[in-house]
């Protein structure tokens, strides 16, 4: 897929676009830091650059990939979310990462929910998994908020990760799961109802 044809997804607070060269500094800051410890990091400058190029190239090889999440008002990059399937990944994955300083606003939930909706609705995915580090409690929590359930029978990437299986498109269509997600996103979007007491992606 040519880079300029990567679809744009808009949500209430966010715009998801293909990753650009100009978005690299935030990616580098996160992946060279402890924040990336559950995603193979921290990485060296060489590894970080190559991974970012691979994030972009994944779109061209697979026809889908990780979107860059932007604040709809300020355009500030907030993190990434989307589909991910390098060679030897057992199944297509839905993945997300939020830049550290923007965590705790429900952006990952809103972005990943929208990305999953696109992959299911427009690209015809019948389902998806997320491969998570068992120590990455914030991401496990987000997977569960997205309605995913731990699948102990599924093949994992390398045995050090756990597989969460996302609800199918049918299970997300006007069900309690999807209503609950929409409700939580709406509460983040309305400061009067912002959840208190825990910082989550």
């Amino acid at each position, binding site marked *: 897929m040519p880079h300029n044809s990567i679809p744009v997804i808009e949500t209430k607070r966010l715009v998801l676009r293909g990753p650009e*060269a100009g978005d690299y500094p935030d990616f580098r800051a996160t992946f060279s830091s402890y924040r990336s410890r559950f995603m193979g990091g921290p990485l060296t400058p060489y590894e970080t650059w190559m991974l*970012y*190029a691979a994030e972009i*190239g994944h779109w*061209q*090889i*697979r026809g889908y990939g990780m979107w860059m999440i932007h604040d709809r008002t300020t355009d500030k990059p907030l993190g990434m979310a989307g589909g991910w399937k390098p*060679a030897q990944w057992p199944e297509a994955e839905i993945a997300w990462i939020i830049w550290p300083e923007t965590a705790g606003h429900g952006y990952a939930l809103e972005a990943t929910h929208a990305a999953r909706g696109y992959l299911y609705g427009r690209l015809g995915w019948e389902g998806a998994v997320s491969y998570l580090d068992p120590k990455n409690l914030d991401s496990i929590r987000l997977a569960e908020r997205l309605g995913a359930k731990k699948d102990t029978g599924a093949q994992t990437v390398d045995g050090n990760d756990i597989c969460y299986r996302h609800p199918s498109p049918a299970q997300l269509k006007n069900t309690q799961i999807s209503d609950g997600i929409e409700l939580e996103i709406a509460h983040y979007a309305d400061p009067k109802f912002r959840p208190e007491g825990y910082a989550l992606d």
Partner: protein
Amino acid sequence: MNAADTLTTHRLILRRPEPADFEPFCAFMMSDRTRFLGGPKSRRIAFDRLANFAGHWVMRGYGRYIVTDRATGRPLGHAGAFQHDDTIPPEMAWSLWSADDEGRGLAREAAAETLRHYRADLGWPVVCARIHRDNAGSIAIARQLGGTQVPHDEGDTLRFDIALAQRGAA
């Protein structure tokens, strides 16, 4: 200014990477032919590397070309500049994916065409090539392309710089 998406020579067409290049590229990466590049590599690394090639084009506006047979379209290898590190000049590659395609000067033909484009159309002053000291075939190509060895402190890797501006003026 961005590099041309396609370059054509007498026998070759050089173009940007495409999804269908993965299997032949993977066969190359997993073979003994990458022994001077730290290989053989896994299928996983091969995928990441082809994705790097494609993403580099978006990041930099130039990158590795896939070298194809002009008559049949068959992918033969890759050539062109790559730069992840701004402190050294763009780094060249000229790799043929199968031993069957060696011996006809195809790698040199592809690399020479990219250098012509970088010099004449983009005005680049210099590129470099990092080559394992035992990779005699590749060292010979570097010298044929005008490369001169420069001091380089990296184990068994030699560095050749190819000055493009001087060649243009000569």
